[in-house]
């Protein structure tokens, strides 16, 4: 731990130019990361507001707060906002943008202008979707299933679809930028197997972004075209097949789950190593596990379609393939646990989030194996069991990792420390609130409560009241970090370059870093997580 009183450096990226133009025309990856941070936080709270209304409606069995049509729009916009405008860009576009050049010892990403363009595209896509929300909303579910989305729905499908389509390009450009940067701009000595595991996970995520996003973009465009011009892609009346939409949609949207969770896994690797003062156990296998998850993630999509009328033989193939994803996922969980073994563990806030991730991801992952099993899948499809499962992955996993990473690198981003007690308290509140919200949904779903209804039989009320109560706790848990992180920007103590005593190039420059990141290009002569080197004085 750092004991000397630190001060902010006189020159850093935050005071290198003032005024709105210096932000809107910046090419600095760190400022673009903050632009993304502000934008996705806005979308997170809009999506969160929808969740509040959904849980309020479900506090009683009767559909007494909103109409069924409004309820359909609420859960649709909640899903669209959270998936496309928060979770997918969350870690890659904020922490990834900020950290990839710093971690490899580069001055910026390979294509700084393209990076800024990706943010503008993201904003334009978001504006389309906000327009759809304000002008009446969309009621198809975030999955846009045909033929409802193309023939029956009378809501704002086209503007929402266009918003998602446009945002896809932002994702592709970000992924492309990361891939090229990691290939071409590593500092001397920074070999592939000296890279922090966060970079391996970002690299794997970028592969999914580049290979998968074009498919969803075109698919969503086909929905808009069919709706506007009555083409026959998905409409059986004119030779189409609605199940084809599901194949194309899930070819991207299942790997998109790994776009959300792989970067969080990268964060957990960094945090566990830093707060256990040990190298990650089995570094190479954890690195390869990231790539394996990215590749295998493309081979499993039809487990979302087992009851959609697909061939039972194809379903068996997809069932087996789906279970394979558990192998690299379990490798990571076991290796993090092994890293902690005999480690010098420090229970600071990022570590609490990392522990939350490991526990909740394990529950989410294991219930994923249930869902890969054909017979169980048929029983629980379209019930709250599914809702609970994917929230354990996306919120319990991805969001926990995001918050852990945000806290871990906040001193680097802002140059200031957050209040540790409040941060630990909110981590605890989020963990409790999350489990109270979503664990009862496993039970309700297993007992047969369907998802996407605004009214339900009274037998399920106790479970739903528990869930709604948990959601209110969770909401408070999210507001507290929002408040103290903002507070710390002005009033937090100066962090110094390396407040957690961590290793990694990003900790060897000032906090906040200068615009050019490093005064001289670093030369790397040690492996990642060289906590032995720290003792020997190689690390600041």
């Amino acid at each position, binding site marked *: 731990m750092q004991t000397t009183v630190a001060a902010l450096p006189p020159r850093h990226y935050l005071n290198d130019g003032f005024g709105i133009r210096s932000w809107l025309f910046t090419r600095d990856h760190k400022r673009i990361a903050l632009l993304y941070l502000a934008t996705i936080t806005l979308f997170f709270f809009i999506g969160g507001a929808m969740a509040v209304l959904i849980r309020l409606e479900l506090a009683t069995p009767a559909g007494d707060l909103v109409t069924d049509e409004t309820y359909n729009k609420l859960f649709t916009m909640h899903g669209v906002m959270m998936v496309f405008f928060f979770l997918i860009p969350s870690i890659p576009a904020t922490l990834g943008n900020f950290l990839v050049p710093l971690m490899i010892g580069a001055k910026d990403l390979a294509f700084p202008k393209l990076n800024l363009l990706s943010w503008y595209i993201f904003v334009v896509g978001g504006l389309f979707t906000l327009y759809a929300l304000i002008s009446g909303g969309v009621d198809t579910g975030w999955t846009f299933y045909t033929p409802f989305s193309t023939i029956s729905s009378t809501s704002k499908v086209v503007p929402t679809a266009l918003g998602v389509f446009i945002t896809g390009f932002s994702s592709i450009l970000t992924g492309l930028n990361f891939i090229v940067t990691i*290939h071409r701009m590593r500092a001397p000595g920074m070999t592939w197997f000296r890279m922090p595991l966060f970079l391996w996970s970002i690299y794997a995520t970028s592969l999914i972004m580049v*290979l998968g996003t074009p*498919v969803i973009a075109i698919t969503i465009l086909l929905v808009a075209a069919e709706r506007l011009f009555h083409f026959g892609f998905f409409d059986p009346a004119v030779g189409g097949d609605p*199940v*084809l939409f599901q*194949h*194309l949609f899930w*070819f991207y949207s299942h790997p998109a789950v790994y776009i959300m969770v792989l970067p969080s896994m990268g964060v957990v690797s960094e945090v566990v190593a830093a707060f256990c003062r040990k190298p990650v156990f089995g570094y190479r296998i954890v690195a390869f596990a990231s790539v394996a998850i990215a590749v295998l993630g*493309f*081979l499993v*999509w*039809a487990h979302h379609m087992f009851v959609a009328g*697909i*061939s*039972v*033989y*194809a379903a068996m*193939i*997809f069932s087996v393939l789906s279970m394979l994803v558990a192998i690299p996922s379990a490798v990571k969980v076991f290796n993090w646990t092994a890293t902690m073994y005999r480690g010098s563990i420090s229970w600071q806030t990022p570590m609490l989030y990392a522990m939350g991730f490991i526990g909740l991801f394990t529950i989410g992952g294991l219930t994923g194996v249930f869902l890969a099993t054909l017979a169980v899948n048929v029983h629980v499809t379209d019930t709250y069991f599914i809702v609970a499962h994917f929230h354990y992955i996306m919120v319990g996993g991805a969001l926990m990792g995001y918050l852990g990473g945000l806290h871990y690198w906040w001193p680097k981003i802002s140059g200031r420390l957050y209040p540790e007690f409040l941060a630990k308290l909110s981590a605890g509140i989020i963990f409790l609130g999350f489990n109270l919200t979503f664990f009862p949904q496993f039970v309700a779903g297993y007992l047969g409560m369907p998802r996407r209804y605004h009214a339900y039989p009274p037998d399920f009320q106790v479970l739903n009241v528990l869930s709604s109560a948990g959601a209110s706790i969770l909401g408070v848990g999210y507001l507290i970090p929002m408040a103290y992180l903002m507070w710390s920007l002005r009033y937090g103590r100066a962090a110094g370059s390396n407040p957690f005593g961590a290793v990694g190039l990003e900790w060897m420059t000032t906090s906040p870093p200068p615009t050019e990141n490093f005064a001289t290009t670093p030369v790397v002569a040690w492996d990642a997580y060289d906590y032995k080197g720290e003792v020997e004085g190689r690390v600041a």
Partner: protein
Amino acid sequence: MSQTHVVPTRVYYTIFAILMFCTYLTVQVAFLDLGALNTVAALAIAVFKAVLVVLFFMHVKYSTRLTWVVVIGGAFWLGILLALTMTDYLSRAWGTFG
């Protein structure tokens, strides 16, 4: 960084002529009754045209091995999409157990 490869304009004109001829061929084949092979023929011509565009107009023929890996990777991923989707369509008519 990469060197610019100079391609004679003659190559571009030749490829353009082949693409135009293939378009003409696609239209002509569409008027023949080949049964299920109509789609196969149209797609085969389209794939051939796409390969020409990628190789010559997009300069992949003259690019580094890494570029080849990227292009082949993209095509392979499209293959995954098509092959695994076809496992559904080709075996749907086989019926179910029990």
